[in-house]
């Protein structure tokens, strides 16, 4: 037997492809294809864009090393390593750092000297200024031989200006520039000695590097990621004792954490687009299935088996999915190029070219989305009874609910775990997204229902629009959720974020300390107190600070490997700043155990900050051992405290009673508020206390703000695609109601309705949908803002009415315009059609 009844795959294939061509020519597939192309395009454009952002972030992380890879050693680095890197065409630079006294006339200062060759820096740029604190500019290379660039603080301490000469070891160098920024300066805020940057060629003449000198040698390497990775693989077995490797990812745990967090943020952003795109595909597939019920019934009548019908449509879907995924990926590539071009001035420099990985993810996303969201209604076509051909107006066959949701959920879970690349995060993201969508859907349904009573009070055009929303209640709800989600995220990232920050800043007293003084020597404490008191700056005491590394808890040795939490790893790797005090600081609150009495001075007791204790798993009664200046100090945790970190007063994780740590080398720390008009005092302070380091809190805050703003901007742009995905949902929903709209529009025209009246109805429908989306988004964004303020930032947050105004207005305009443009075709539908639809 031949023909459709035979139903093998080989026989179904040519039939399916012919049907696909026929459907395509008849315009049947365009809706589904467009929905899918847009879906894949939005996902891949996010993929390409985040891929590039991620690479850019990697490069920014490289900036903190001034390279992609650094070999670090206390001894000169093997020449073979540099030769190999050069042979592989990698960028190379060398740097040497050591502490040294710098002299100018009769003044001297300990400086952190760094000598670099012409290749430095390989990543990031140096910035220099002609005078201390003057506007700075990029410098292409480091200092020329015979010259030195000085940290602004050195100018004050040494009393030099640009053009003067300073003595470094046995050499004299000309001060050629003020060094205002150095990419790999970073490091520990508490160990900063002012920098002197000089040329590596001048080092022999200084005669400063002698056996036993405290010198660090660095070999800096940079290049294409795959080349660097290959070099690293070559390097690993050849590293000798004393040499260590630092890559971007293993350089510093906090940097690794920042990158991971960025990846999660952007992954989540992409995920939301996937959800919306899936909804668009589901809506379009439903329409496709509805329109193929009659042809399926006819085929069944003519003898096609159920299996044949299944194979026919599955093959068509697969072919369509492949085609759409390819087209969507290409479109996505173009879309991200356009986006990058449009945002060039806002993005950090030129972005690297995207990797081909998102292309693969586009193909996979397209197929999974189509099959997961689109297949269930299409699979139902096999169940169309042949008797359908006899009935006049049979109800369409609805897909089974659990299959639809189960399959969509499975597709989503697959895509999410792939995007998130982390099972737990995927579960959280999926759960969180689904919960958000469900809550939004509930809100949207209530809103759509609430429109009902309004209909009696409005004119024909508005009633027509509102009636259309009510008639397509589930479709309307989906559209409100899709746009609500997009608008909500954008509101959160812009308005709510700004308001939270503003609320936090308002909470800070105007005279919150803006300068920290560190490295105050014990013999300077009294003089410093007098200095500050004499100038009306004394507010906070000077606190002693002893540096110690946590080595054991209850006798068990601890190392970074014992902890999964990156913060815990970092805390264990680094030295703690320990302090001692007779009384807890005013903003500290004992939450467990008790503070020591005056009689307990010198006893082995410790008070630990609660957050730190939780991070490191330390409890009341635990015995902590610290390595302090080569000796072991052991004491028991007798109290846990909370600390108000944003008071900008010095605070300590671990405090001991007076007497326990007094014998160890300590420096002192304090903070004070210096009004902007009294900045001149700083120079006097630095001159009076050359070894004291002044930290400008405002400058640090500005830097942190800058990083936060940039990260938020990146996420916002990614979420713009979410809005675009929301638009595809709207278009799919419009497409699926287009036949009905045409019919209704023809009837209204027949009854004497004008184009303007029809247009008013469309405007009413879509601006209302948009306003609902915006209001729902504002509601959700405000709720999330309140939860964040309460739970995370412990702030009293008063939501601004602007969130509502901008949300509603944005939704009304955006959705209104898109909806009316998407449906305006029906306006020109000839009224005579109403006669032809008998």
């Amino acid at each position: 037997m031949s023909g459709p009844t035979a139903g093998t795959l080989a026989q179904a294939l040519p039939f399916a492809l012919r049907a696909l061509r026929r459907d395509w020519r008849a315009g049947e597939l365009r809706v589904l294809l467009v929905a899918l192309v847009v879906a894949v395009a939005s996902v891949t454009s996010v993929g390409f864009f985040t891929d590039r952002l991620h690479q850019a972030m990697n490069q920014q992380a490289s900036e903190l090393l001034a390279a992609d890879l650094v070999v670090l050693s206390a001894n000169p680095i093997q020449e073979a390593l540099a030769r190999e890197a050069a042979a592989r065409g990698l960028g190379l630079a060398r740097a040497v750092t050591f502490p040294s006294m710098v002299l100018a006339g009769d003044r001297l200062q300990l400086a952190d000297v760094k000598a670099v060759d012409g290749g430095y820096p390989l990543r990031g740029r140096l910035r220099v200024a002609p005078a201390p604190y003057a506007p700075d500019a990029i410098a292409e290379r480091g200092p020329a031989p015979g010259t030195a660039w000085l940290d602004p603080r050195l100018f004050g301490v040494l009393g030099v200006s640009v053009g003067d000469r300073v003595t470094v070891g046995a050499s004299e160098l000309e001060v050629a520039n003020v060094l205002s920024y150095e990419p790999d300066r970073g490091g520990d805020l508490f160990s900063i000695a002012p920098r002197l940057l000089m040329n590596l060629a001048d080092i022999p003449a200084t005669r400063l590097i002698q056996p036993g000198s405290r010198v660090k040698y660095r070999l800096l390497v940079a290049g294409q990621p795959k080349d660097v990775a290959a070099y690293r693989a070559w390097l690993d077995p050849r590293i000798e004792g004393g040499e260590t490797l630092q890559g971007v990812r293993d350089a510093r745990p906090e940097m690794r954490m920042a990158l991971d967090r960025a990846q999660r943020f952007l992954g989540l952003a992409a995920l939301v687009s996937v959800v919306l795109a899936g909804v668009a595909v589901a809506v379009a597939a439903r329409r496709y299935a509805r329109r193929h019920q009659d042809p399926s019934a006819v085929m069944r009548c003519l003898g096609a088996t159920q299996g044949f019908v299944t194979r026919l449509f599955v093959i068509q879907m697969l072919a369509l999915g492949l085609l759409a995924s390819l087209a969507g990926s290409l479109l996505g590539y173009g879309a991200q190029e356009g986006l990058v071009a449009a945002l060039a001035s806002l993005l950090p420099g030129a972005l690297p070219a995207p990797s081909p990985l998102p292309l693969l993810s586009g193909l996979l996303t397209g197929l999974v989305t189509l099959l997961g969201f689109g297949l269930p209604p299409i699979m139902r076509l096999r169940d169309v009874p042949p008797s359908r051909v006899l009935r006049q107006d049979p109800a369409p066959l609805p897909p089974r609910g659990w299959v639809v949701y189960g399959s969509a959920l499975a597709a989503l879970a697959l895509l999410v775990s792939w995007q998130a690349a982390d099972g737990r995060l995927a579960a959280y993201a999926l759960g969180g997204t689904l919960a958000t969508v469900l809550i939004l859907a509930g809100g949207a349904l209530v809103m759509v229902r609430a429109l009902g009573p309004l209909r009696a009070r409005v004119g024909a055009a508005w009633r027509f629009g509102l009636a259309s929303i009510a008639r397509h209640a589930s479709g309307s709800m989906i559209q409100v959720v899709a746009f609500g989600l997009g608008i909500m995220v954008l509101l959160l990232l812009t308005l709510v974020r700004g308001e939270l920050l503003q609320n936090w800043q308002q909470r800070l007293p105007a005279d919150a300390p803006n300068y920290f003084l560190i490295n105050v020597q014990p013999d300077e404490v009294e003089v410093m107190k007098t200095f500050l008191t004499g100038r009306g700056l004394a507010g906070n005491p000077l606190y002693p600070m002893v540096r110690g590394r946590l080595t054991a808890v209850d006798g068990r040795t601890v190392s970074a490997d014992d902890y999964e939490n990156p913060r815990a790893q970092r805390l264990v790797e680094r030295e703690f700043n320990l302090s001692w005090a007779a009384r807890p600081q005013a903003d500290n609150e004992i939450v467990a155990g008790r503070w020591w009495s005056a009689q307990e001075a010198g006893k082995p007791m410790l008070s630990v900050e609660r957050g730190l204790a939780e991070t490191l798993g330390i409890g009341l009664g635990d015995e902590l051992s610290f390595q302090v200046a080569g000796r072991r100090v052991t004491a028991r945790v007798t109290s846990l405290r909370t600390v108000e970190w944003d008071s900008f007063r010095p605070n300590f994780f671990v405090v001991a009673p007076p007497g326990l740590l007094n014998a160890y080398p300590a420096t002192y720390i304090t903070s004070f508020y210096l009004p902007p008009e009294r900045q001149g005092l700083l120079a006097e302070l630095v001159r009076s206390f050359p070894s004291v380091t002044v930290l400008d809190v405002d400058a640090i805050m500005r830097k942190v703000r800058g990083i936060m703003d940039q990260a938020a901007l990146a996420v916002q742009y990614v979420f713009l695609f979410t809005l675009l995905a929301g638009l595809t949902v709207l278009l799919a929903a419009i497409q699926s109601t287009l036949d009905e709209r045409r019919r209704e529009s023809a009837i209204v025209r027949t009854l004497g309705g004008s184009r303007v009246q029809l247009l008013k109805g469309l405007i009413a429908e879509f601006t209302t949908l948009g306003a609902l989306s915006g209001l729902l988004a504002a509601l959700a964004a405000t709720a999330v803002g309140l939860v964040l303020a309460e739970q995370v930032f412990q702030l009293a947050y008063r939501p601004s009415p602007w969130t509502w105004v901008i949300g509603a207005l944005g939704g009304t305009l955006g959705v209104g315009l898109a909806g009316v443009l998407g449906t305006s075709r029906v306006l020109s539908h000839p009224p005579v059609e109403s006669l032809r639809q008998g």
Partner: protein
Amino acid sequence: MQAIVEAINLSKRVASPEGRLDILQDVNLRIAPGATVAVVGESGSGKSTLLGLLAGLDLPSTGRVLIGGHDLGALNEDGRARVRADMVGFVFQSFQLIPSLNALENVMLPLELAGRDGAEQAARATLDRVGLGARLRHYPNQLSGGEQQRVAIARAFAPQPKVLFADEPTGNLDRRTGARISELLFALNREHATTLVLVTHDVGLAEHCERTVQLEAGRLLPEAQAEIAVVRALEGSA
């Protein structure tokens, strides 16, 4: 007496894969105010096309259509819509109610589109008249076929049009319901003294009309012939 609807040398041609196709050729028709006219003919004879042209839903390839003295060819689509809103009512074979509007809202629609005052009262009164006073808030899918057609008739008569075009108004209904609908249609037509132009296969329905015109392959037959055809059909079906 001036005709309320007049077709002058009306032709309609469309392009088809086999070349030009004449659907209507040289149709001339004058319909006096208050007249009831049945347009009969076989499937594909051009009945619905003629109705569409007479109502200004479509434009002829050549010739003119006048409704109440308005030359429809001289108006744009919105101008023709205004003429329809002011003077014309419709009843269709497939009812053509707006599914998202309830019965009352469907009947109010043409009144509101024409900017008439008291749309709701007029719509309620007309729905009462067709016996659906208790079903104002029902949506089309909650009504039977006969009820839907009654809503459609109420919608057609509520604005008190000068001309009512009906396209196979009983075509989708069983014989008994169809008979009731046709009674209602003619009763309302008498009450409102509306001009009725009816396209139908149903010779019983055509029989109710004062005049019958027959289309054959796009041409209007002389009216005597049409009357004979109807009588024969009636005899045949008796």
